[in-house]
């Protein structure tokens, strides 16, 4: 067990090292793609806090993602860059507030009703930006400058540089992972999991289920907003589609594809889905069909998510079926059962 943990730590360190060094060997196009993957991965990991750990399938996370993007667009002055110190807290705060309101109402429902209610709230926000003139209506609006990271007049980072932007996004993604890992392992995280596994028992032990779920929903919405803020900055453009159910559903596919019971699974899901898309789009006209088939294949092959592959490779003893395949049956030591 200890050896497995050590190896997986080493693999993680190696992956992070490669990710940090990426700008030194990858072309700008791929850096931008990598930034996009990280941001969608962050959205999917945020979503997974409620879906995988909380057992609540939300279909409105694109609304938090897009809302934060819109806040950046609306608070950016037309001819100069907006200060990140003002626009980022505003965007994340707006996403968290939206999550608080939507969560407070939709968490009164359960199961399929929860899915439908979150979908409805997400679509409400979509149509708000689609049908009103708030920010260009259905055409969306441009963000001409990336946010300014400066103290007074001293610039700290130049987000216009693809490389710097990528590193900032990478840093945020890693911070997001660290935050989620801490939460999942915390007493709160255990209580959240307990309410997923057996709501009735968790409640009769004394856990305030509604408040626990609402807190998870708000944290998750805020992280989705963080991702949306940088996604909008990267594209230089926001449109209502950013808030639509299609983005929510894509994030959900990333969650399922990568693995719901791990923090980083959804990030892997994002990388696979977007890498696949990139590759297939260049190779065939019928890429959507092919993509769909491959995803179905992967989900069937890895019902617990593709991230499971890593665990299988690193900790084979944790997978009895695998162990049986590798070694002939060995009688268990007495007293070990």
């Amino acid at each position, binding site marked *: 067990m200890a050896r497995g943990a050590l190896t997986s730590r080493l693999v993680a360190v190696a992956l992070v090292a490669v990710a940090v060094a990426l700008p030194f060997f990858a072309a700008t196009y791929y850096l931008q793609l990598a930034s996009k993957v990280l941001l969608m991965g962050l959205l999917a990991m945020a979503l997974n806090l409620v879906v995988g750990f909380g057992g609540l399938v939300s279909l409105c996370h694109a609304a938090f993602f897009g809302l934060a993007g819109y806040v950046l667009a609306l608070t950016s002055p037309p001819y100069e860059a907006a200060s990140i110190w003002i626009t980022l807290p505003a965007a994340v705060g707006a996403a968290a507030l939206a999550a608080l309101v939507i969560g407070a109402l939709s968490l009164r429902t359960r199961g399929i009703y929860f899915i439908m209610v979150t979908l409805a709230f997400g679509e409400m926000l979509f149509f708000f930006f689609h049908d009103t003139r708030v920010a260009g209506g259905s055409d969306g609006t441009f963000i001409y400058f990336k946010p300014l990271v400066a103290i007074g007049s001293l610039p700290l980072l130049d987000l216009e540089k693809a490389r710097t932007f990528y590193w900032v996004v990478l840093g945020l993604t890693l911070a997001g992972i660290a935050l989620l890992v*801490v939460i999942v*392992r915390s007493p709160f995280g*255990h209580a959240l999991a307990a309410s997923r*596994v*057996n709501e009735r*028992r968790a409640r*009769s*032990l004394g*856990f305030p289920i509604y408040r626990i779920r609402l807190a998870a929903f708000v944290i998750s919405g805020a992280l989705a907003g963080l991702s949306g803020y940088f996604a909008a900055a990267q594209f230089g453009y926001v449109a209502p589609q950013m808030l639509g159910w299609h983005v929510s559903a894509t994030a959900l596919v990333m969650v399922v594809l990568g693995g719901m019971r791990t923090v980083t699974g959804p990030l892997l899901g994002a990388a696979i889905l977007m890498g696949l898309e990139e590759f297939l789009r260049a190779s065939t006209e019928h890429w959507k069909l092919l993509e769909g088939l491959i995803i179905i294949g992967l989900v069937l092959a890895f019902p617990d998510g593709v991230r499971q592959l890593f665990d299988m490779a690193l900790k084979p003893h944790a997978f009895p079926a695998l162990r049986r395949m590798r070694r002939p049956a060995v009688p268990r030591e007495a007293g070990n059962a």
Partner: protein
Amino acid sequence: MPEVALRAEGLEKRFGGLRAVREVSLDVHIGEIHAVIGPNGAGKSTLINLLSGELGATAGSILLRERPVGRLGVHHRALAGIGRSYQKTTIFLPFTVLENVRLAAQARTRGGLRLFGSPERDADLNANARAALDQVGLSGRAEVAAGLLSHGEQRQLEIAMVLATEPKIILLDEPLAGMGTSEAKAMIELIRSLKEGRAVLIVEHDMDAVFSLADRLTVMADGRVIASGNPEEVRRHPAVRAAYLGEEGPP
């Protein structure tokens, strides 16, 4: 007179036209086991659900040491000291036995919802959880997934979870259901030990167990209390003999 821990007055629960519980009043005392018996559908589980807060009463009041709790939700009543088990075992099946009990201990702890730290490394939580497992005799199974336990062990685990919340009042809904003879024997002794410093209300069909455990009995039929008192009084009560115990009578 021993201290009243939980008092129900004129409780009623309607499900549409059905009055599953009507005009039920009872006291549960610290240091006593109060058994509620009655035929299937008498309203016993509904009564427990009213007391634990899972159902809201249509009429009547519930007092927890003179404090009205009828309007409190389930988790508030749990934190106020009411612990319960279910007729159908209700535990966290995929989690290990220790995790199950640790969650129970965590629920009533200050900081039980902190966003940092780890329950697994919390010495106090682990000690409390282990103590509860010791008390029900499940220490040897701490690392086993709860779903892999035998039925009897699962019922023991549920009691351990209730104990780990350190309740003042324990409500048990048919704790012996589906148990083998030797398992049941151990469970009866466990239940007997629970009344030390606590009030216990037990719903049970096993009459031998009931008459060996109960300090006080309430007999229900069709949602109503048809008799109550100490075991001797109830045993002799004509309505009970007719409606419930049959001609043979209890042992």
